């Protein structure tokens, strides 16, 4: 029996083939590990728990097993609450161990850029094959000229509203300008059907409304240099001044404490007439037509439609969140992870998942605008064009760590919340500008 000391064992266990060459059969036995060519690579993929549960089931029961067969690897697929992903990423990076691939939302890849693997080859290949990525995917997915993640899809919100109640308020189509919003909202609230919008500290819906609202008035956080704070402007003050009567006259006051699921519950229970949200409300109503009914007893799904957020002097915008698969820098399986991403992002595989979403998300590339999924349900069609009106937090600067800090501290959201709670508009803007100045210092 060949005697192997500790150092030798470590060397040998690093590569089974080398073990075989150096120590022969005895070496392999001593290392208690099969040679590399006999091992199965284990990949650990973490994603959020999807708002369309059928998509997670498809991944778990069909796509992941298919991937294991196609690539000869073992995949541990895990879904967690979106709010917990950042804690998971942080602990994994700091400890240098954890999942091989983690799905990020919003601008998160920019926060962890130096701890992620370069996946330029895969991202370029997928992007070129599928008509090119949207600009927002490039902005979030590229750091220092390299792709730090492979864009998967884009999720975002539109205004979901009750057609019949809008018609009773005199609007056959959802209002376009903010003045029309105010007029319609006042009538709706008077009829007992207020607009529902969160002004609380919550992950998606608060920023999803108030950032585009600010931009639509022409307001912005910083100049394009990403340093000069530009919040304290006539446009921002106007937006805050308008927000106060709009809130009081049109909105459900409970929104100050809502989280991301509160408006779903309020809408489906018939308490509110409109809210900015992903398509999850409509998809839920569609899934259970007998459960969610209008006051006339008809299926609520038939009374639901979607519209873009209001238009102001600055235009109309949305704040969608790109979903990006990050290969972690500490991963020992980077090649296998990239092979898997190349496979799972390919047209035939991704199409299965994309179809299961029923329009809840857009593809990361323009190719998916032509997918037949958009022909199936006209109520979902407005989501197709969402990426084209997209801006990212931190506008007009990059969606970097500073922008994330502003968002994490809810400075923009709280600017409006403070005004709604009685602070003069100028003071609220001044407070927010002061906070932004400290962040961007």
């Amino acid at each position, binding site marked *: 029996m060949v005697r192997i000391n500790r150092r030798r064992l470590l060397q040998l266990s690093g590569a089974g083939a080398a073990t075989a060459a150096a120590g022969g059969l005895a070496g392999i036995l001593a290392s208690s590990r099969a040679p590399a060519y006999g091992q199965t690579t284990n990949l650990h993929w973490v994603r959020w728990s999807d708002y369309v549960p059928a998509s997670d089931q498809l991944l778990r029961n069909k796509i992941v097993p298919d991937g294991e067969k196609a690539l000869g690897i073992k995949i541990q697929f895990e879904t967690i609450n979106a709010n917990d992903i*950042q*804690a998971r*990423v*942080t602990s994994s*990076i*700091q400890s240098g161990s954890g999942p091989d691939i983690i799905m990020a939302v919003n601008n998160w890849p920019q*926060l*962890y850029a*130096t*701890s992620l693997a370069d996946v330029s080859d895969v991202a370029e290949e997928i992007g070129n094959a599928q008509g090119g990525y949207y600009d927002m995917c490039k902005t979030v997915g590229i750091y220092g000229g390299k792709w730090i993640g492979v864009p998967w899809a884009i999720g975002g919100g539109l205004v979901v509203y009750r057609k019949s109640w809008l018609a009773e308020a005199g609007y056959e189509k959802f209002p376009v300008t903010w003045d029309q919003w105010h007029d319609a909202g006042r009538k709706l609230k008077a009829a007992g059907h207020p607009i529902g919008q969160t*002004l*609380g*500290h*919550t992950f998606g819906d608060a920023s999803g409304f108030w950032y585009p609202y600010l931009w639509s008035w022409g307001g912005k956080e910083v100049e394009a240099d990403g340093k000069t704070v530009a919040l304290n402007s006539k446009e921002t003050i106007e937006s805050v001044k308008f927000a106060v009567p709009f809130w009081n006259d049109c909105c*459900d*006051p*409970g*929104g*100050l*404490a*809502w*989280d991301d699921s*509160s408006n779903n*519950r*309020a809408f489906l*229970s018939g*308490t509110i007439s409109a809210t900015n949200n992903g398509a999850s409300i409509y998809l839920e109503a569609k899934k259970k037509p007998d459960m969610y009914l209008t006051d006339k007893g008809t299926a609520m799904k038939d009374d639901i439609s979607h519209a873009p957020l209001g238009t102001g002097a600055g235009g109309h915008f949305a704040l969608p969140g790109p979903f990006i698969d990050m290969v972690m*820098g500490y991963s020992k399986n980077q090649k296998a992870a990239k092979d898997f991403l190349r496979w799972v992002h390919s047209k035939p595989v991704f199409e299965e998942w994309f179809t299961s979403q029923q329009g809840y998300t857009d593809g990361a590339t323009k190719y998916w605008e032509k997918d037949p999924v958009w022909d199936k349900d006209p109520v979902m069609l407005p989501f197709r064009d969402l990426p084209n009106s997209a801006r990212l937090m931190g506008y007009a600067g990059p969606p970097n*760590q500073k922008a*994330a*800090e502003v968002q*994490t*501290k*809810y400075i923009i959201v*709280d600017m409006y*919340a*403070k005004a709604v*709670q009685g602070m003069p508009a100028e003071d609220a803007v001044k*407070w927010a500008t*002061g*906070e932004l100045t*400290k962040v961007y210092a």
Partner: protein
Amino acid sequence: MTFTTVAAPRSYARTPRRGPVTRLLEDERWLAIVLLLPTVVLLGLFIAYPFIKGIMLSVTDTKVGVPGHFVGLQNFVNVWHDGIFRVAVWNTCIYTAIATIFKLALGLWLAVLLNNNFKGKAFTRAFILLPFIIPTVLSTLAWKWMFDPTFSVINWGLYRLGIIDHRINWLGDPDLALISVIIVNVWRGVPFFAISLLAGLQTISPELHEAAAIDGARAWQRFRHVTWPLLLPVTLVVMLFSVIQTFADFQLVYVLTGGGPANATQLFSTYAYQIGIGTGLLSQGATISLAVFPVLLVVVIVQLFYIRKAETH
């Protein structure tokens, strides 16, 4: 006369030879070290190491995945000038002070009630522990539903009783939001006070009460001059634990309000989490967490001083 045979003691030479470890442990100093070692290791791993790591992080500019450089006390200066941090400090102090006062008052009241003999005493004692036993996140989610502006059962009840004619915005109004999180904290913390103080009450000899009663002391006088002085050391210890736990509370506020609306319920811990995890600024998150330390240290020293004084007295 009876003779008993006494077995001769075995000679020393015939006893089995003791090993070096046994001989070492016969020395009390070494035995003490060995017995203390597991505790020292556990405290070192789970208390000292994170604390020292936190201090080291707070004097650098470390971000997630980016090793930091030494920046001295710059993070503390930044935090000091941070308006949201100051709001968090104020909220934490108010939250801790009011919650602790109510927990003490209600806990003491409950303990005195439970110290009496009544039917179903054992069941009641076990039952009141429920808020303390249920995982905080679960019970807080239930409270979130009860405070929900649209579906609040509290509002429904008050409305049906004719007490209110419009919905109360429990978590949406800044003042009510802070009051709401305090209510939940009190609800969760009262059983800990009640059971601990009940244990303290049961150590007080009934003879003392009987003697006081014979001397003509009324119920309140007996409580004021007999029960309270004897219960004081236990009360102070319970308060010490409670203040530390309440000061560092996280789950409850994170689930109920996330620190909102407009930072009205932002606490040290929720803000530290936002900055450290949400933004990836680990050093600043650690700095905010460490800022609790001097405040807590003063509170602990003052309370320990009083505990010692009460025990000596």
